[in-house]
């Protein structure tokens, strides 16, 4: 499953949205995700993707595609430290 699909599943379950609404260029604010909802979403992303969002919350995430790119960057950053144990 791609990052986008996983994020879509999360938003459908936790934010009451539909897959049709969740196109890559859909804006979070247009989807009804306000500043509070965004903080909630970051928690859910941490849980769902097993990543940790560092310190200050990211403020430049406007579209769904921005969130996907952000998640992928965090996963890539986390990956090297996990690699020694991979395959054992």
């Amino acid at each position, binding site marked *: 499953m791609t990052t986008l699909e996983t994020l879509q599943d999360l938003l459908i*379950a*936790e*934010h*009451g949205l539909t897959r049709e609404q969740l196109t890559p260029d859909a804006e979070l604010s247009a989807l009804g995700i306000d500043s*509070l*909802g965004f*903080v*909630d979403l970051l*928690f859910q992303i*941490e849980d769902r993707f097993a990543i940790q969002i560092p310190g200050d919350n990211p403020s430049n995430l406007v579209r769904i595609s921005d969130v996907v790119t952000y998640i992928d960057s965090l996963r890539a950053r986390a990956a090297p430290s996990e690699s020694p144990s991979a395959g054992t």
Partner: protein
Amino acid sequence: MRRVAVTGLGVVSPLGHSVDALFNDLLAGRSGVRRLAPFLCERLESPIGAAVEFDGSAHFAVPRLKMLDRVTQFALVAVAQALAAAGIDFAAEDRSRCGVCVGTGMGGAAATDEGYDVLYAQRSQRLKPYTVLAAMHNAPAAWIAIDHGLSGPNLTFSTACSSSAVALGEAARRIRLGEADLMIAGGSEAPLTYGALSAWEALRTLATMDRSDPSASCRPFSRNRSGLVLGEGAAFVVLEEFERAVRRGALIHAELAGYGLSTDHEHITRPTVAGQAAAMRAALASAALPPEAIGYVNAHGTGTLQNDAVETAALKEVLDAKVRGLPVSSTKSTHGHLLGAAGALEFVISVLALERGVAPPTMHLDAPDPACDLDYCAGAPRRELRLEAVMSNSFAFGGTNAVLIARRA
């Protein structure tokens, strides 16, 4: 002075989620008190409560549901009932003249409990971002105003067990004084959490569980009473300026005619006859009614040793209740003590008693107490009463005594 009409009633209670279901259960003596969830049974000495069967997801969709503590969910459902029953369409109202008064003793207890569990038990710092918004005491009142776009006064009262009696009384004052034309007023409480139950247990005021019949554990006015049983739920009324309600052809259940306050200032928990009597007298004065006009009293009747004897003495002193054979009952015997929501729920019950001419019973009163010697409608309702006015008593830890009087419209 303007008069105040009661034009809509709504409840979410341990005895049902409509006023008819509630009143039918009361008259049948059915108790909402039961054993609590296994998790609580393992940890509490007396694991009983009057819980509401309620699934928030049936009423609210995500993501909004996550922002609403159980206490707010109860309130919004009860308010929707009351508004529908009153036939209010806010699109046709001047919403700046419409407000909200809510009473709650413990606010978002579940949100608070969950937050502490994350911090102290799970040793995590991942508190939900909505914790403050769900836990704050004024969340129910705020969401009611948001849902209906009401910009009039929005107030939350927290005077422990009299919170929602105060909310109703203060809402009625706003209308009486011309500061508002319509007020949604009531109370909500959802205290059946491990933390809140434990705190109440530590206070040694909760009833011992009747092991043969847990549902009969709350025994107001009975010699073998052992304390109160916590309950949860919400009750709301729509209050309107009387003439406006008449003009729009509303069904007027009653007039909220009297509201009296007093304070027991001697001790943080101990009630006094003088304090309770003063609140009853103040309510009668505010309604401009003589004591003999009161035909039924829904007592505070918690089932604690102290309250029931003191309240009995105060009822005798003010209403001559013993000599007159005045029907008095404590419906807490079956719906439990809803703390901050108790006053509103019991006012709704009092209004139903007034309208239907029936006094609901006090259940589980099987051992008369010489200190409690009134007619408590023990075990069975008193029917075919000709009621002109009824009184609902609410007394509180902290000392805020509040008494409401409903009069036939």
